[in-house]
């Protein structure tokens, strides 16, 4: 959804490094450094690092935004386990739309990527010609509401 939002806004942002904990900044996304450092600390065991990154986030973006970031991070601790614990595949249109991004970020090498089977060439054609344009239209409409 990140890339779709960026494209809809007419922007171009390099997402390379998004999933790499060593990458702590995405140019073009305000406060990405504070957010990514917080996310890394949230997923680690260092209480001091968590406290520091929380304080930086609150200072840069405000306490409300920091609390909302905690809400998002804790939500994805949950959603990831729902996905991985039920072995769901990726939704095909989304998987196809993000295929190049998954390759670039290396997420296609995750064990859970094996839950998504390769899409046949015929289905790829149908998705590209019919389903994805419809989905992009829905995203555009919903985003302009």
């Amino acid at each position, binding site marked *: 959804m990140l890339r779709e939002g960026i494209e809809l806004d007419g922007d171009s942002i390099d997402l390379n490094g998004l999933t790499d904990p060593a990458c702590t900044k995405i140019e073009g996304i305000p406060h990405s450094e504070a957010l990514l450092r917080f996310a890394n600390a949230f997923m680690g065991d260092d209480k001091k690092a968590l406290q520091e990154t929380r304080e930086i986030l609150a200072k840069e973006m405000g306490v409300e935004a920091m609390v909302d970031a905690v809400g*998002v991070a804790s939500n*994805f601790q949950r959603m990831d386990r729902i*996905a991985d614990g039920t072995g769901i595949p990726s939704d095909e249109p989304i998987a196809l739309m993000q295929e190049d991004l998954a390759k670039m970020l290396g997420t296609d090498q995750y064990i859970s990527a094996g839950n998504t089977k390769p899409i046949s060439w015929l289905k790829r054609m149908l998705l590209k010609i019919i389903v994805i344009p419809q989905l992009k239209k829905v995203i555009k409409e919903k985003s302009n509401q």
Partner: protein
Amino acid sequence: MGQIDYSNADYAIRSDFAEGHNRYWKRLAAPGNWLSGAERVAVAKEVRAANACGLCTQRKAALSPYQVDGTHDSASDLSDTIVEVIHRVITDPGRLTKTWFDGIMQQGLSVEQYVEVLGTMVNILSIDEFCRALDIPLNTLPEPEAGEPSRYRPANISEDGEGAWVPILANVVDSGPESDLWDGRTGYVIRALSLVPDEVRYMLDLLEVHYIDNRQIWNVTGSPRGTLSRRQMEIVAARVSALNGCFY
């Protein structure tokens, strides 16, 4: 049971977090579809025990979790099978496989029970993780309510899971008792727990509090609450998911 209240936290926390968490605590204590209230609260205790479990620590460090045998450090009287499910999903979600899931099913846990255990544990985890990240003491677990599980199983289930390990509801459910769950079509991750429809309802309720209303999921621009932009939310989500090894 005292009400969950974050008004004394070090940071101002919008009130709907406590409201949503209180709603879930009430649901946690009550009999579910396939688990009693006591079993649901025991799942919560086990979630809290998992991160301190010696076996889980060894497995997490091993090249393969299947190289390490042993017994989990359990905090409940749940069956060994349920304890294994909770500890593995909590501590090592990125290495779950269909083979592991099939092994669990062969140990006598029904798929309906599995889905309810999974739904319960992940909601507890998200609330506990919220508290941990804000340095708030974990909320006291509720006293379980008496009563029997309803054993409700919805109609219109795709038994083959459409590629998922567990049966799920058909994508379009526009009539019947499950028609409230989502509008039109939705993603697999929303349908994943739909064999136990209440777990989807509870999940969506907390989704709106922690992240975004599912009906707004395709609104990919702007700022849902005026604090974080959707882009900023998504980079946090992407980084957490990457560190969990989650492709979805």
